[in-house]
């Protein structure tokens, strides 16, 4: 294949499922389910993260996410957001598997409410148990190449390091460790959390990540649907730049016009 054909056929595969879009979007914090669905559409995402929560038994007929985002067309990735122990996360995902009927899940086990930083000891423990039970966990983690390797060895099907704290929009704080994780990983790596605007997403892709997962950057934009489009373009641009191979940086100027033939 030529480089051009490579780019046309660009896709990524996680746990045997192949996707064209490298953008995964969350479904939290939107003003309405309509706006949420429009943003997912504009983002081109083929995977959305969802939470598992109690049905409101005093009003069970409230509109449901599944009425607006069709799980037959868009892959639902159940998440364990809000879980602070391995046990809570495992319990949540067992229920998610029963509700959805699939094994591909997102694991996150948080260490504290202030930073929402992952608790890696609990995360690793939960990963081991989930893999034994037949789950295929995509795992949210710290941007630490050693922790990432340990998760992969435990059977994580994707490594998802944070770019910055969840919901902070601060952008990728440590490009060096994200790149080290990408270089060392044998499974897909996706930056999960911390993206604030389109350039952050492009940067993640330029570092060689297989994808980017975000929620707040789109949901809390003044115009979420427009930002969803921006993120789609940014992820594609960053991916193309990575495939193209960027120029070397120089310390000083280098003229673009030939020096020969100057009048």
């Amino acid at each position, binding site marked *: 294949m030529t480089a051009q054909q490579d780019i046309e056929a660009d896709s990524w595969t996680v746990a045997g499922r192949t996707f064209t879009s490298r953008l995964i979007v969350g479904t939290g914090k939107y003003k309405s389910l309509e706006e949420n669905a429009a943003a997912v559409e504009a983002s081109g995402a083929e995977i959305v993260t969802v939470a598992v929560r109690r049905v409101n038994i005093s009003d069970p007929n409230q509109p449901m996410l599944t009425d607006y985002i069709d799980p037959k067309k868009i892959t639902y990735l159940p998440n364990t957001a809000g879980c602070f122990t391995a046990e809570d996360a495992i319990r949540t995902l067992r229920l998610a598997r029963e509700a959805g009927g699939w094994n591909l899940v997102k694991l996150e086990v948080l260490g504290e409410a202030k930073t929402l930083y992952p608790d890696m000891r609990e995360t690793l423990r939960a990963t081991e148990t989930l893999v034994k039970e037949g789950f295929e966990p995509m795992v949210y983690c710290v941007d630490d190449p050693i922790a990432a390797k340990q998760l992969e060895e435990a059977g994580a099907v994707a490594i998802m390091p944070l770019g910055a704290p969840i919901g902070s929009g601060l952008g990728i704080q440590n490009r060096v460790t994200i790149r080290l994780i990408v270089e060392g990983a044998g499974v897909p790596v996706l930056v999960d959390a911390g993206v604030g605007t389109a350039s952050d997403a492009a940067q993640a892709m330029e570092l060689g990540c297989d994808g980017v997962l975000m*929620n707040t950057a789109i949901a809390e934009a003044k115009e979420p649907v427009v930002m969803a489009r921006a993120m789609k373009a940014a992820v594609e641009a960053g991916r193309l730049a990575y495939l193209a191979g960027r120029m070397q940086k120089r310390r000083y100027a280098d003229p673009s016009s030939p020096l020969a033939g100057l009048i």
Partner: protein
Amino acid sequence: MSLDGSLGIRVNGEHKRVPGGISIVEMLNEIGIDPAKVAVERNLEIVPRSTLSQVCVEDGDDFEIVHFVGGG
């Protein structure tokens, strides 16, 4: 178990009384929940969807009934 044969159970943390001898599917229908859209945990154990119509509700059961909602 009470004198009228009804059962005292908890559903998503709320106390409820349901008629004796009903299955989980019948309980869900009584509350107004579509069994196809939820997952059911009974006393911390998942009840597989395929068995919801066979498993009977018992006095003192503690149910968690969940579904997918928007999240990150």
